[in-house]
């Protein structure tokens, strides 16, 4: 396997810069060369696929009503949902990307981990239980609760679909490249495989299958990462200081890896990034949807508690793995060789970070090889693939629900659609999204798509989150305020991101960016809230008055769960 590794010619060079360049990228960018077929990994991945298809078959027989399809019948426990949320959130690139960032820059990786995590307590304190008490299947149920259905649901569906599409493109391209690299499969084969499997899980097994795919993947990822961190710490007799000392001695940046580097420079960028990470989490449609799979507000709260624990633990592990990677990749092995570097350092010189085979995002994978041998390397590769598959399935279900439940059932059929038709529309949409994402995955193969996850987060934070939050907390909001404010957030997020350095300069190749910041979060989020406020308070229409009067009943239900959707009977 080590010999096979060295056959990778073109490194994932661009991916080393993936997280910093885009503020919070999630995809694998840059060109990769196909690796020799990795049989251990393929066998283990096939075992995962068989298991999940078995679960899909089991789930399909239990999925009859719309509630089963969208919300797994509402019968998932808080602990299971916590694992599934963690599964939805811990993507392959947050594993490979953050470990890679720690490997190349040390402390800076921790800044990202922290940013990805701190949105969760806010979701719990302000959103989870109210969302559970008010909604049924999608967050638009809550956002449109006392408002005109057509405009709010249309806007929410646009926000959901935009978030899901950009996220999906990044995941599909990442999947294709990663699989090419880890398994030695063709890019096209990899993308089609991901698309077909995800269509299978979602159309046949609905939310029940998707949830269990997430749970299995989360358990695999957490146990694999735990094993790696354990083995790394064991090398240093469980003394972190010894590990840090070894890393500082061998890393070309020396002591600088123990303090913040160039990642965050000015306070505006820092706060903007922080806001987008924090509030984007609270506006991701596939995450919000998970709160309808549990029976009540109590379980919804528990799920966030468990999810925060698992995700936080996982980020601590990736930090240890990143430092382990420094020590294991940059130092010679027992035979004095450097099996994970393209070329050994000259005598007396330090090894070059970027010389790692496959690029810095492969750091965690090489570390798996170093601590657990070929079999464990195969396992971690399979876990990385399973991770992408699970995230993609969750996203697709959220996109399909926005179309079938919000656009078809509420906007198009005005609430008169029957359940079976709604499920049928959802399944057709799933197939369409699957095919579209294969096509987009192929179309964007050679593009740098890393900024798209950033875009997804900023849209979620600027369009979905403000409408959702204000609809639950502010009695004076009206349809007009929500639609105009939300649209303002959606449009400004996209426009400012395109005019900013990540797209205008890096992707479109212009000499200088028109908008100076990588992350427009601070501006687009504030614009959205300001728009909602201004266009609501100036709205004195008859319908606006009625919407304000309806707030009290919504408020009581959101607080007490009076009249909330329960779990289904079976």
């Amino acid at each position, binding site marked *: 396997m080590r010999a096979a590794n060295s056959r990778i010619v073109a490194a994932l060079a661009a991916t080393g810069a993936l997280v910093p360049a885009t503020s919070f990228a999630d995809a694998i960018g840059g060109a990769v060369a196909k690796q020799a077929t990795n049989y251990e990994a393929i066998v283990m991945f096939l075992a995962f696929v068989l298991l999940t298809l078995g679960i899909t078959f089991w789930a399909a027989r239990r999925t009859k009503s719309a509630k089963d399809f969208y919300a797994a019948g509402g019968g998932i426990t808080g602990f299971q949902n916590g694992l599934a949320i963690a599964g939805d959130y811990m993507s392959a690139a947050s594993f490979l990307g953050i470990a890679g960032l720690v490997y190349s820059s040390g402390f800076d990786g*921790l800044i990202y981990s*922290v*940013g990805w995590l*701190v949105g969760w*307590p806010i979701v719990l304190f302000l959103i989870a239980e109210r969302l559970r008490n008010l909604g049924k299947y999608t967050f638009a149920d809550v956002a449109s609760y006392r408002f005109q259905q057509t405009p709010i649901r249309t806007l929410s569906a646009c926000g959901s679909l935009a978030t899901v599409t950009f996220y999906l493109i990044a995941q599909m391209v990442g999947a294709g490249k990663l699989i090419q690299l880890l398994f030695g499969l063709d890019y096209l084969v990899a993308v089609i495989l991901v698309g077909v499997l995800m269509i299978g899980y979602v159309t046949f097994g609905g939310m029940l299958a998707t949830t269990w795919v997430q749970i299995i993947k989360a358990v695999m990822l957490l146990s694999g990462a735990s094993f790696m961190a354990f083995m790394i710490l064991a090398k240093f007799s469980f003394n*972190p200081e010894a590990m840090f000392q070894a890393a500082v001695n061998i890393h070309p940046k020396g002591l600088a890896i123990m303090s913040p580097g160039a990642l965050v420079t000015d306070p505006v960028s820092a706060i903007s990034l922080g806001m987008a990470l924090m509030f984007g989490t609270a506006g991701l449609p596939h995450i919000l949807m998970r709160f309808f799979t549990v029976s009540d507000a109590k379980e919804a*709260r528990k799920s966030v508690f468990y999810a925060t624990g698992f995700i936080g633990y996982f980020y601590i592990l990736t930090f240890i793995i990143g430092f382990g990677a420094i020590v294991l990749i940059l130092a010679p092995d027992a035979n004095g060789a450097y099996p994970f570097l393209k070329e050994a350092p000259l005598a007396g010189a330090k090894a070059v970070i970027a010389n790692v085979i496959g690029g810095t995002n492969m750091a965690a994978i090489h570390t798996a090889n170093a601590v657990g041998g070929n079999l464990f390397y195969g396992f971690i590769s399979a876990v990385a693939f399973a991770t992408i598959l699970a995230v993609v399935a969750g996203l697709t279900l959220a996109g399909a629900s926005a179309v079938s439940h919000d656009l078809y059932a509420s906007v198009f059929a005005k609430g008169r659609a029957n359940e079976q038709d709604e499920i049928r529309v959802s399944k057709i949409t799933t197939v369409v999204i699957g095919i579209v994402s294969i096509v987009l995955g192929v179309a964007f193969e050679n593009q740098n798509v890393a900024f798209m996850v950033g875009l997804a987060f900023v849209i979620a934070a600027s369009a979905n989150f403000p409408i959702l939050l204000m609809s639950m907390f502010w009695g004076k909001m009206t349809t007009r305020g929500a639609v105009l404010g939300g649209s303002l957030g959606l449009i400004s997020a996209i426009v400012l991101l395109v005019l900013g350095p990540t797209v205008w300069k890096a992707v479109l190749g212009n000499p200088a960016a028109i908008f100076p910041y990588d992350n427009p979060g601070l501006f687009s989020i504030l614009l959205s809230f300001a728009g909602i406020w201004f266009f609501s308070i100036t709205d004195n229409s008859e319908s606006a008055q009625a919407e304000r009067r309806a707030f009290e009943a919504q408020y009581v239900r959101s607080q*007490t*769960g009076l009249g909330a959707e329960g779990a289904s009977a079976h």
Partner: protein
Amino acid sequence: MSKNTQRIVNNPKFQELIARRSAFAWTLSIAMLVIYFGFILLVAFGKGFLGTPIGAGVTTWGIPIGLFTIVSAFILTGIYVNRANGEFDELNRQILEELK
């Protein structure tokens, strides 16, 4: 407004639940925001401090502070869930019970 909604709004226990739970949720939210943005501002302005070794070794103050931020997120959710699923849910149950 339905009769039940009106009865809940008029129930002093409901007002008490809202007052206590909101105050608690906002306090914890602000605590999280202060911890996180405190960390981010330290990263932006206090690089020197975060990069200072704690003792004679190489481990800097940044490491425990970063880990503390992660662990604090988990602890804050635990504190909230513990009180909300106990004290607040009991109060909520009584409010709904009184409708019958």
